[in-house]
């Protein structure tokens, strides 16, 4: 393929790599993350240790996995706030089945099946019945949490099978170094970065969120895309719930309370626009890491909960405001 000589004459020359980089939201986030890490390293001696850093990756994994799903839904122009309840709910089939069958794979299958059902219901309500996704998933959030309480009688269900794999899944370390949840979350992140970049379906998600009318004209099945996004989000919330369940060694009926807020905050912090069509999973991963390192570091500094809340809230506002400011400046 010949290199087009006309490119040099193009009315707008390609911006330099540096300028492109500076425009990327991810770079700003990365700088923010590095600044945090440097600050905490100076402030606390126990922060910058391999053990602590890998710990944080493990702690971030739940929000990372669920965040990928929510980010995809938000990119497609919808939202999913039922993920916290769902992450708590999947522990029930997981632990119950494991206790009955002594098999982790069967338990996981049961957990993912529940997630799939919820995803299909959410997807159907939003994509095919046309109910606003915030309302629909707020409804399922209540229904699932109430269902958990009703089913368990507000008791947690202990793991009585004592499967070593189940313990290792959430608590073990790959080569004695990287926690398995971190590994799993990075694999999932990589898969979806690949999907969003390399698979036509990933591009359809951006298109549908960016401009559903154009997407429809391009022959995309807008409803189907949104449906699948909500199913993916539920499945990933299910995976996060499985990891959570393993870290808790049981199905805890209060698990995942408020998780949706954490995840949505991280996703927005990661530069995904709530209007849809804009954002990157790398940004989301950085958003999750920033919040996780913040929580870990503020803990290391022995900062009281109330200060942690105030600081985290302030940082979210500042970061989103900055992003918005940058976006407006670019437009001008």
């Amino acid at each position, binding site marked *: 393929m010949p290199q087009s000589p006309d490119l040099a004459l193009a009315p707008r020359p390609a911006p330099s790599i540096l300028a492109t980089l500076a425009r990327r939201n991810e770079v700003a986030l990365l700088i923010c993350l590095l600044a945090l890490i440097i600050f905490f390293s100076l402030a606390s001696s126990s922060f910058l240790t391999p053990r602590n850093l890998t710990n944080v990756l493990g702690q971030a994994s739940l929000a990372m996995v669920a965040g990928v799903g929510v980010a995809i839904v938000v990119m497609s122009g919808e939202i999913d706030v039922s993920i916290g309840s769902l992450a708590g709910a999947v522990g029930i089939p997981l632990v119950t089945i494991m206790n009955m069958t002594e098999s982790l794979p069967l338990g996981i299958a049961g957990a993912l099946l529940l997630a799939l059902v919820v995803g299909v219901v959410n997807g159907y309500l939003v994509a095919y019945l046309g109910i606003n996704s915030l309302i629909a998933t707020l409804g399922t959030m*209540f229904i699932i949490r109430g269902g958990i309480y009703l089913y368990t009688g507000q008791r947690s269900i202990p793991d009585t099978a004592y499967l070593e794999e189940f313990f290792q899944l959430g608590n073990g370390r790959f080569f004695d170094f990287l926690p398995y949840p971190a590994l799993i979350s990075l694999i999932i992140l990589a898969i979806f970065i690949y999907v969003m970049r390399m698979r036509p379906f990933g591009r359809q998600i951006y298109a549908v969120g960016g401009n559903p009318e154009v997407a429809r004209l391009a022959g995309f099945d807008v409803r189907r895309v949104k449906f699948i996004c909500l199913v993916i989000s539920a499945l990933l919330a299910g995976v996060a719930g499985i990891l959570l369940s393993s870290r808790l060694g049981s199905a805890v009926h209060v698990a995942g309370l408020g998780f949706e807020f954490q995840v949505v905050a991280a996703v927005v912090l990661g530069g995904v626009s709530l209007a849809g069509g804009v954002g990157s999973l790398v940004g989301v991963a950085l958003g999750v890491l920033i919040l996780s390192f913040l929580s870990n570091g503020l803990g290391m500094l022995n900062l009281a909960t109330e200060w942690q809340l105030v600081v985290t809230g302030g940082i979210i506002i500042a970061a989103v405001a900055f992003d918005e400011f940058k976006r407006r400046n670019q437009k001008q």
Partner: protein
Amino acid sequence: MTETASSVAPPSRLRALTGNNEIVLIVILAVLCVLISIGAPQFYSVENVVAILRQCALVLIVASGMTMLLIAAEVDLSVGASLAFSGVVAMDVTNKTNSVLLGGLAGIAFGASVGLFNGLVVTRLRVNSLIATIATMMILQGGIYLYTREAVQNRHSIRLFTDLSTGYVGPVPVPVIIAALVFIACYVVLRHTMVGRYIYAVGANEKAARLSGLRSERLKLGVFVFTGMLVGLAGLLLASLMNTGQPTAGRGFELQVIAAVILGGTSLMGGRGTLIGTLLAVLVLKVIDNGIIILRWNQDLQMIVPGLVIIGATWLDLVRRKSDAR
């Protein structure tokens, strides 16, 4: 194009009065009342009705503001945290000054300043209100414990303070009267004033509103502050009802309020919604809440049933609007 005129039926009187979504809610409410009273005749006891109304009062006060906010295409998730905080402030200031008036004003002013903060972040920094007010919620949840580590007790023993929530005027509880006044004021503002029109216009199409000479940001800021004031007022009533300023109060209150406003037919996209719908929705939700207890059903249903009702009612509304469009 001339056919347009003949094919669209003029709206009936009733519809014009109530809008459309309200009819669904009225039916739901009526069915609920009938069914619950069959299972538990005490439902209609004066005491129970008063209890329901009093519970409705707090939610309705805040939901009235929230309805305006949603019509203006914004949302405030910090109302729960702000409710607790303003209650604490109201009680504390009343303790310190021995004046219910000053305490009440302090609570309301606190709520208003939270609203101001939210409004400034949203209109000046252009942060999406959903995310901005989640952040404010966190800040307030932290801030309240920086303010007080424990519940602020009533140390002034002023009768008026407790009467705000437990007193009666004739047979009607005071908070119900306050809520009714707030509701009527908001209703009049939304329906019969320029400000109300502007709120709808800004929510329906902010660009067009600005091009028509409206200062949309100032208007939104105003609605945020007003909603904040109402949260402060509700916080004052809650402190009076609890007879303490409770930092742990208000958990999940924001979702209750937003659920009611949405169920009432107010669009999350702005520009559409009525206060009558909100009122009915508050009643529906509180009747469900109350009914489950007096029917002695499992209280876990208090989460499940509202979830189902919200999804179901939204869907019905959608179906109705589609068939209207045809």
